[in-house]
């Protein structure tokens, strides 16, 4: 099989996105204080309201404590030993992609991200973020024809300040948690999406995050607003080079869905996970939250988490509007010494709201994989429903799988169902596949992909194929 050979070739290279692009970058000095924040703000030529927002968040952050409730163990992060702004040097203003440093384009080419607009066939608009800044956004004109705004958040601050001022921090307030406060103080770039009333976004939107320098953190911020009766599908991908130090990634994603709109947010997270001894890797602390403000609005999160040394991530939905819908589909795979504490929060506030949670955790090697979720029915959420399903699969007897579902109900006229199971790869099934001439490791990866099918079905097509391949690669050598 051609496909198989391809997979084997790739396997030889344990983490194929681990290269470093040798490019001149502009970095500011290490450390975090008010002056640094002012400097970031100044570099990005931001209006005053944003600087105030940052400084306020910083003050709050200083008073907060790093959370320790997650089932994670990692060495203390020295927040003064991080560079909070790093950008590839390029000409002041770029009018077209031809002016982007070819080295950067080459980097994204290597990652398989189509930035050059000749590759229109893919029909996905991309916003590429390199360290702290967005370097290019494709298909802008085509999108603009439909009234869709898709640009980096720095540009949006300049061109659509009113929207930013109105919505930034309304879903994830600066004081929400330790990492959200840090992000609000120092966020450098990210994507901004605005879908006007009645528009179905003509193509999938995508952002690609790349950490290149080893000593700078990445703090991106994404804001997506879907006006009445609009809909959008958004994809996010992440990679980083291999360093033997840990790099911090603390992002905030805010989604706002108004009446009858729908947002689908898919992530394939493949940050560098550290080597087999657990040296290096990204610390991934992300706050993602969507607000279903409007009636019958819908927010759907789907994620495949395979990378990062530490993952701390709980994409959530606030279901405010009547009959709004929240969904969460997740596959989290941990191998070697990776640790993941991930899950979701479904807060039912409005009446007749619905939510579905499907979480699949696979732990192999010496890793630790926890599902932590909250389902809450508020007093006004009459007629609401929730269904959660969390399955864990253990591979090897060194890995651990934990489930911590918190369920809280204050509304008798609502229904909550939760079920969880833990199992290992069935020997019978394995035997069956092997007796049909399928090799051991391939049989395992087939079964893992079957285990995750409920979630993969929810992913956009390109992602589903990639996710399947990714899992097979990650599991290589962990069985037997």
């Amino acid at each position, binding site marked *: 099989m051609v496909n198989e050979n391809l997979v084997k070739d790739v396997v030889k290279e344990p983490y194929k996105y681990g290269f470093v692009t040798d490019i001149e970058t502009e970095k500011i000095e290490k450390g975090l204080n008010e002056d640094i924040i002012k400097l970031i703000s100044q570099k990005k030529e931001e209006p005053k309201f944003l600087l105030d927002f940052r400084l306020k968040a910083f003050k709050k952050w200083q008073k907060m404590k790093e959370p320790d409730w997650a089932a994670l163990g990692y060495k203390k992060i020295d927040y003064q030993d991080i560079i909070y702004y790093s950008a590839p040097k390029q000409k002041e203003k770029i009018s077209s992609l031809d002016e982007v440093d070819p080295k950067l384009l080459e980097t994204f080419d290597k990652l398989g991200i189509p930035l050059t607009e000749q590759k229109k066939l893919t029909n996905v608009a991309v916003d590429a973020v390199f360290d702290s800044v967005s370097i290019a956004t494709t298909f802008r004109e085509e999108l603009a024809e439909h009234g869709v705004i898709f640009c980096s958040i720095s540009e949006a601050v300049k061109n659509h300040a009113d929207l930013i001022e109105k919505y930034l921090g309304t879903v994830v307030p600066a004081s929400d948690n330790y990492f959200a406060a840090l992000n609000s103080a120092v966020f450098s770039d990210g994507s901004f999406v605005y879908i006007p009333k009645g528009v179905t976004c003509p193509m999938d939107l995508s952002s690609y995050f790349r950490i290149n320098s080893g000593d700078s953190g990445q703090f991106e911020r994404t804001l997506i607003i879907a006006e009445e009766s609009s809909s959008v599908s958004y994809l996010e991908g992440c990679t980083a080079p291999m360093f033997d130090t840990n790099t911090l990634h603390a992002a905030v994603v805010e989604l706002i869905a108004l009446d009858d709109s729908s947002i689908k947010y898919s992530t394939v997270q493949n940050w560098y996970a550290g080597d087999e001894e657990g040296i290096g890797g990204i610390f991934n602390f992300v706050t993602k939250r969507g607000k279903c403000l409007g009636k019958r609005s819908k927010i759907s999160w789907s994620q495949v988490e395979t990378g990062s040394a530490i993952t701390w991530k709980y994409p959530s939905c606030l279901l405010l509007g009547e009959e709004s819908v929240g969904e969460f589909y997740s596959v989290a795979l941990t191998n070697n010494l990776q640790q993941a504490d991930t899950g979701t929060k479904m807060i039912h506030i409005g009446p007749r709201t619905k939510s579905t949670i499907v979480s699949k955790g696979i732990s192999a090697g010496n890793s630790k994989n926890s599902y932590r979720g909250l389902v809450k*029915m508020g*007093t006004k959420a009459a007629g609401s429903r929730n269904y959660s399903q969390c399955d*864990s699969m*253990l*591979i*090897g*007897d*060194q*890995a*651990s*799988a*934990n*489930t*911590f*579902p*918190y*369920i*809280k*109900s*204050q*509304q*008798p*006229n*609502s*229904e*909550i*169902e*939760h*079920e*969880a*199971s*833990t*199992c*290992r790869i069935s020997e019978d099934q394995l035997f069956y596949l092997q007796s049909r001439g399928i090799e051991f490791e391939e049989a395992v990866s087939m079964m893992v992909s079957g285990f995750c099918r409920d979630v993969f079905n929810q992913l956009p097509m390109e992602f589903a194929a990639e996710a399947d391949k990714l899992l097979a690669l990650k599991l290589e050598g962990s069985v037997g």
Partner: protein
Amino acid sequence: MEIIEKIKTNKSDDNLTEIQKICLHKLQSSPLPNPKSELWRLSNKSKLSTFLDFSVNEKDSKFDMPYPKNSQSTIRLIIGENYQIKLIEKNYSIQQLSEDELQKYIKEQISFFKQNENWSDLLNLSLSCKNNILGLKINGSKIPPIEIFSNASSNSLNAKTLVIFLEKNCDVELLQVNLGKENSSLSQSTFFCLKENSSVNHGVVSYGENRSNLLNSLNVIQQKNSSYNLGSLHFKFNYARFEISINQSAGNAKTHIKGMQITKKDEQISTYTKIEFNGPNGFLDQINKSLADDKSHAVFEGSILVPKVAQRTDASQLSRNLLLSNLAQIDTKPQLEIIADDVKCKHGATISQLNEEELFYMRTRGITLTEASKLQLSSYFQEIISFIPISKDKWDLLDKLLNEN
């Protein structure tokens, strides 16, 4: 600090037993449980302080038995009454544990205590004096059913401790009844040690009165091939916590738990269970039911720990909850922590109200709404009540639950 002062003013240092001194010492470093810890986060702080408000009482007044002793063969004991128990029959023997045995066992248990997890036990052991500790060693089979009562007097805080050793191959039915009086606090700690091949059907019925409070802790150690069945019911308490800790010390043991808590008015009743498998081939089947009405709050937190040694564990946990009022609240958190890979573990949780279709069906058959809901509730209760030993034939718990208030 207040609570420690309270114990001390009651007695001079010399009168305290060694165990009381050890526990007091442990409590001194942090007199109250950490309200931020997962185990105490949802606990109503003001209710806990009401619990501690009453003065400590070591001798309690006689109480009315909730039901008559209708069979001669039942053994009935009341903690706090001075007994000299030595029953040696052909098939079985029930003897009181000697002072030394008790001391040794309790001290060993204390060495494993953690501040927040075992705070209720620490409080209990620092309060309960010699008279209020009952230790039994049970051996043999065909043992008549045993009933053990523990009660609190009005306007006081009483602490009762029960230690039970089940010797090898022993098989027994035991019902523990905790009775709360109006405005009273009862701290009850029970330690069970099941030796190899022993089996027990344990019932715990905690039945309060107006404004009574209860801290009920149950610690069970199960050796190989033992089987522990627990049926429990907690109702009519202003504030009650039921903490169950079960340790299958070498695996190969069976545990069945069916528990229920019913809250009304502004009551808060919580159940915390921790089940640890420290050996292979363990089995657990647990169901916990809650019913919350009026402005009450019911809490269930169950954790299952399966470390690497516990291969081939089969554990399931189900939390079923009925929320009957707009102002009531239910929190439930079943959790699994698993490292062993060859295991079957599952848990489930549901929160809902009475099934409307069923209600509708019954009403179309001419059954009134009240009757229909009663029927539904009785089937909901029956599953648990039928699992509680001894009680079912003489104390009509179902009737009590359905027809009182």
